[in-house]
């Protein structure tokens, strides 16, 4: 399958909503966010995307981008042309099924984010986000581990519907409880059991295998 790899700096737009597109992208390195700007100029991050994931599968079906994708860190992506991808799906149904599973997982993650904003208190929202990214990053190893999390507290605020000041206060609380520390673009889980407990995290919604490893 033809591929072109592109390196993009942090804070750049990978794709803008409404832009005409003829390829979907695969994240090779770095973190992306799907964003929704509001009329007051405030930004809502509606999803994160990690290496191995395809953030804009809609581009395979729809000619213009449904959402803006922003690089949160320097990112490396591969663009997969629509025609080539559709051809591959026609010839190898397993690829289509893998993309279908990714889309279902995206939907499940989005539902958890809704519950996060609707039901959980600040510290629990942040803990939940970290638990989810830890599993998606395949970083979980025992009770203490760390992983790349190049997401600022402002981004966390935009993803959880909170003020950055409130995020900072909650992050300080999580550190004081020795559950988690966020330092220099990495998340350091100090007590995985405690962090999951604070988050009321039930991770079965992530059980769909990240399917795009088939393609990478």
């Amino acid at each position, binding site marked *: 399958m033809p591929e072109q790899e592109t390196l993009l700096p942090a804070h750049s737009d990978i794709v803008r909503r409404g832009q005409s597109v003829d390829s979907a992208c695969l994240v090779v390195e770095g973190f992306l966010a799907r964003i929704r700007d509001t009329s007051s100029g405030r930004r809502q991050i509606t999803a994160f995307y990690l290496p191995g994931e395809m953030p804009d599968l809609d581009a395979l079906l729809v000619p213009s981008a449904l959402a803006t994708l922003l690089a949160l860190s320097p990112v490396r992506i591969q663009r997969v042309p629509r025609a080539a991808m559709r051809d591959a799906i026609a010839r190898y149904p397993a690829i289509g099924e893998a993309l279908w599973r990714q889309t279902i997982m995206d939907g499940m993650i989005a539902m958890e984010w809704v519950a996060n904003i609707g039901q959980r*208190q*600040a*510290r629990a929202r942040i803990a939940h986000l970290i638990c989810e990214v830890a599993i998606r990053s395949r970083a979980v190893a025992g009770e203490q581990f760390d992983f790349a999390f190049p997401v600022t*507290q*402002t981004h966390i605020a935009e993803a959880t519907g*909170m*003020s*950055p*000041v*409130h995020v*900072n*206060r*909650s992050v*300080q*609380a999580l550190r*004081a409880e020795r559950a988690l520390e966020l330092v220099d673009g990495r998340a350091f889980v100090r007590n995985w059991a405690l962090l999951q407990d604070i988050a009321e995290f039930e991770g079965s919604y992530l059980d769909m295998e990240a399917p795009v490893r088939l393609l990478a």
Partner: protein
Amino acid sequence: MRYYFDIGGNGPETRDIEGLECKSVEEMHRRATMILAQVALDVNHADCLNLRTIVRDSRGRAVYEARLSVEGRILS
């Protein structure tokens, strides 16, 4: 202008290290109110709430204070 929102009252005192960029003093006032309202949602106490924020400017001087409190009493 960057302002720093230190929070106290119910729960631990926290110092804002990063601050928020505000386009005007009025925006800073509004954000102080909004932050207290958000923090109030997290407070677990049953019947009273007493939160305070002291806002510092980029020189570290306290320039604004906002309070949010809820008091309840039983009516017989």
